[in-house]
C-alpha cells in the first residue's frame, strides 16, 4: 500500500472510532482537532480499544492547534455552517437517537435491557435534552418564518409591513437558536472554568528577547485588568537593562483560562532592538505557557515529597536571628520540579505562592503524561505542543501582528501590546476558529473536505 493509502485508511478508522466514542460515551476526546489531522500518526493500538479509556477521569485539553490552514483561512458564518449537509444529518441523527432513548427509558423493557444500559441512556437523554429542545424550537421558528413570508405578498400594505417586522424578528430568533445549537454541540472543556498560571520565559535573542518578554508580560497584565481578572505576580526575574528572564503570575477570574489558553506558544518579535547600534533588524523569541490551575480536589501533592528550602537553614533560628531574607524554594523530589518565590516580605506568603506555581507545574506535567501515555504515537506533538509551536509574530517595522495558526494579521503593534481591544480581537478570532475546528471534527467534515 502506498503511504497515502495507509494514511487514508488510518483516517477512515480514526473517524469511525471517533464517532463510536462520541455516540456511546458522549466523549469528545477523540474529536480533538489533532486527532483528525493528516500530520498526526494515529496508532492502531489506540483505535482498537477506544472504549477502554477512562472517560470520566480524563481531562480533555483542547488547545488550538491548526492543522488545516485552508479551514483556518475561512471562518464560516452560522448560516454557512447550517447549509452543510453533514450538520443537518447530524442534528437529525441526534434527534432520532434522543427519541429512541427516551422511549426506552420511559417504557423500560426490563428483560431486554440491563440496568447499566438504562442508566447510560438516561444520562444521555438528560444531556441531549437542551439540544433537542433547541432543534425543535428551530423547526417551529422556521415554519413560522415561512408562514410570514407568504404574507409578504399580501395586498394590504399594513399587513405587509407587519409581516416584514415579524419576519425580521423570526430571523433573529433563528440565528440565535442556531448559535445556541452550535455551542451545545461543542461542549465546554473541563478546565475552561479553572484559573491559570501564566509563565513567560525569554527565548532566543539575549537581552532583546528579555526586553520583549517584559513587554509581553505587561501586555497580559493589562489584558487581565481589561477583563477584570485578578493578576498576581508569583515569580519575577528581571535582567539588568530592564528586561525579563522569566516570570510567572497567577490569573483568576471568569473565563480566564478559556481565553488565555490560546496564548501559549512561542511569540516572535522582529524589530531593531534598543541594544542594536547599527540599525539591523533582529528576530527574537519568547515562550508563553498557560497552565490550568488544579483545584484542591482534583489534584493533591503528598507533603512528604516536598523539600522546602529557606535561607535560614543554619543556626538556631527563631529569636536568635533576624533576617529579611524571606525567599522560599520548594523542590518536588520525585520529579525534580522546582519553584521559587521572593516576591513578598512575608516568608509564609512566599511559601504559598511558590506552592501555587509548583502545583500548576506538576498538574500540567501530569496532564501531559496522561495524554501521551494514551497516545504514544502522538507523543512528540502533544508533549511539546504549546511550548515549541511558533504561534505569533510581532513585526515592528511593518507594524503588524500575525497569528500563524489562523493566518490573521492585525496592525498597530503598540496598541496590541496594551493588551486591550486588539488582543481581544485576536483572541476572539482564535476562539471562533477553535470552536469551528472542534465542530467540524464532530461532524467529520475535515475528512470529507480533504
Amino acid at each position, binding site marked *: 500500500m502506498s503511504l497515502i493509502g495507509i494514511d487514508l485508511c488510518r483516517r477512515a478508522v480514526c473517524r469511525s472510532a471517533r464517532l463510536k466514542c462520541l455516540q456511546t460515551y458522549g466523549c469528545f476526546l477523540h474529536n480533538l482537532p489533532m486527532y483528525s489531522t493528516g500530520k498526526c500518526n494515529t496508532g492502531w493500538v489506540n483505535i482498537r480499544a477506544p472504549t477502554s479509556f477512562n472517560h470520566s477521569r480524563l481531562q480533555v485539553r483542547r488547545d488550538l492547534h491548526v492543522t488545516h490552514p485552508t479551514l483556518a483561512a475561512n471562518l464560516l458564518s452560522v448560516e454557512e455552517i447550517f447549509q452543510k449537509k453533514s450538520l443537518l444529518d447530524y442534528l437529525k441523527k441526534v434527534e432520532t437517537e434522543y427519541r429512541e432513548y427516551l422511549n426506552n427509558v420511559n417504557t423500560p423493557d426490563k428483560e431486554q435491557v440491563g440496568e447499566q444500559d438504562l442508566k447510560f441512556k438516561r444520562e444521555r437523554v438528560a444531556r441531549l435534552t437542551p439540544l433537542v429542545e433547541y432543534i425543535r424550537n428551530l423547526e417551529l421558528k422556521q415554519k413560522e418564518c415561512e408562514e410570514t413570508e407568504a404574507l409578504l405578498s399580501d395586498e394590504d400594505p399594513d399587513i405587509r409591513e407587519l409581516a416584514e417586522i415579524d419576519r425580521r424578528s423570526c430571523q433573529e430568533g433563528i440565528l440565535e437558536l442556531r448559535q445556541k445549537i452550535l455551542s451545545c454541540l461543542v461542549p465546554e472543556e473541563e478546565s475552561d472554568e479553572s484559573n491559570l498560571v501564566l509563565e513567560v520565559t525569554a527565548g532566543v535573542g539575549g537581552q532583546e528577547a528579555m526586553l520583549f518578554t517584559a513587554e509581553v508580560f505587561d501586555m497580559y497584565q493589562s489584558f487581565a485588568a481589561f477583563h477584570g481578572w485578578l493578576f498576581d505576580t508569583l515569580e519575577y526575574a528581571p535582567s539588568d537593562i530592564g528586561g525579563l528572564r522569566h516570570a510567572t503570575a497567577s490569573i483568576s477570574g471568569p473565563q480566564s483560562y478559556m481565553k488565555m489558553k490560546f496564548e501559549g506558544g512561542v511569540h516572535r518579535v522582529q524589530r531593531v532592538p534598543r541594544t542594536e547600534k547599527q540599525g539591523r533588524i533582529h528576530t527574537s523569541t519568547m515562550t508563553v505557557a498557560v497552565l490550568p490551575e488544579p483545584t484542591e480536589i482534583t489534584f493533591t501533592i503528598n507533603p512528604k515529597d516536598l523539600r522546602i528550602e529557606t535561607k535560614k537553614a543554619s543556626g538556631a533560628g*527563631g529569636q536568635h536571628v*533576624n533576617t529579611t531574607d524571606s525567599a522560599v524554594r520548594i523542590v518536588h523530589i520525585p520529579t525534580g520540579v522546582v519553584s521559587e518565590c521572593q516576591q513578598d516580605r512575608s516568608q509564609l506568603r512566599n511559601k504559598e505562592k511558590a506552592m501555587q506555581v509548583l502545583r500548576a507545574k506538576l498538574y500540567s506535567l501530569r496532564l501531559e503524561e496522561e495524554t501521551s501515555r494514551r497516545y504514544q504515537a502522538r507523543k512528540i506533538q502533544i508533549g511539546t505542543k504549546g511550548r515549541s509551536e511558533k504561534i505569533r509574530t510581532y513585526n515592528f517595522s511593518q507594524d503588524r501582528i500575525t497569528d500563524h495558526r489562523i493566518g490573521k494579521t492585525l496592525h498597530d503593534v503598540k496598541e496590541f501590546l496594551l493588551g486591550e481591544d486588539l488582543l481581544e480581537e485576536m483572541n476572539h478570532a482564535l476562539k471562533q476558529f477553535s470552536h469551528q475546528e472542534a465542530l467540524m471534527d464532530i461532524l467529520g467534515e475535515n475528512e470529507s473536505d480533504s
Partner: protein
Amino acid sequence: MEVLSRLNRMRCAIRLLKGPERRQGLCSASGSAARPPVVRLSVQDATALWERQFRQSGVSEPSLSSQYIMAHVLGAKTMANLGPDVLTKTLTDMQTHQFWKLCAKRLTRMPVQYVIEEWDFRDLTLKMRPPVFIPRPETEELVGLVLEGLWPMQDSGISGLRCLEVGCGSGAISLSLLHALPQLRAVAVDRSAEAVRLTQENANRLGLQDRIEIHQLDVTVDAEVILRECSRVIALISNPPYLFSKDMTSLEPEIIRFEDPAALDGGEDGMLIIRHILALAPQLLTHNGLLYLEVDPRHPPMIQQCVQEERIAGLHYLQTRYDITDRPRFCVLQRRGTED
C-alpha cells in the same frame, strides 16, 4: 531656588569629576555616606552603591538591605513588585535624599524592619519601631497552627470566642488571628509600654481596635491582675522570650543593639517566662482550652517534663510541632480536668 540648586549641582559635579574626590563624594565610608551624592543616580546604581557600602562595612545581608530600602523609597514592598524598567530610572532629589538617610541608619546595623519602620507578617503589614521585638517568620507558622485549632470552633458556632496573648510585642499574633477570624476577640498583654503602644497603633491602622484589649502587664508580677482581667479564654498564645541567657552575648548587633533584651532573654534555661505561663494556664483557659507556645528547639522535652513532674493540675501536653526548617519549635498543650 531650583535654578540655584541646579547650578550648585553642576558646580559640584564639575569639581567632583576632576579626580578621586568624586568617588569619595559618592560613597565615602560611614560618616560622610549620609551626605547624598551630588550627581543624579539611577535606581540600579544607587542600590549597587549601597550594597557595596554595606558589604565593606560588614553589614549583614547587604544586597537585600539595599534593595528593601530602595523599594520602600519607591513606594513598593520589594523590588520584584516594581516593573522591569524601574531599575534604569533616575532618582529624584527627594528620593535620593531619603534613600541616603535610611541607608545611613542601616549602616549603624539597625535592622531593615526598623529602618523602613514596617514589615509584613502573614497578610498584614505592621508598623515596626525599636525596641519592640520584630516578629520572626516562625511565628507566622505559629499563627497558622492556632488557626488550625480555632477554625473548627468558629465553624461550630461557639459564640464569645476569646484568646489571650502574653508578650504581644508589635501585636503580630493577636492581630493576625483577629484578621483571620472575624468572630474572635483578643486580649493582649506585654510588660513593655512601647510594645503596648505599638500594638494599639497597629490595631488602629488595621481597623481591629474594637476587638482587642491591650494591657501593660507583666506575667511574672501581675499574675493576679491577669487572672482577674483575662480569664477565661479559649486559647492562650505566646512567643515568650526563650533565649538562654548565655546565648545573649552571641547575638548579631542588629538584635542586641536595637531589640528589647527583655523580649529575648528567657533566663538561665530560657524557661523563666514559660514556667510562669504554664503555671497560670490552667486558671486562664476554659475546659479543653489550648495553650500554644513558640520555643527554642531544646525546650519541648523540658516543657513536657515540667508539666508531668510538677503536676501542673489539669494541663496536658498534646504535641510538639516542627517549623519550616524541621526544628521542634511549637508546643501545644490543653487544659483538661474538671468542668468550670
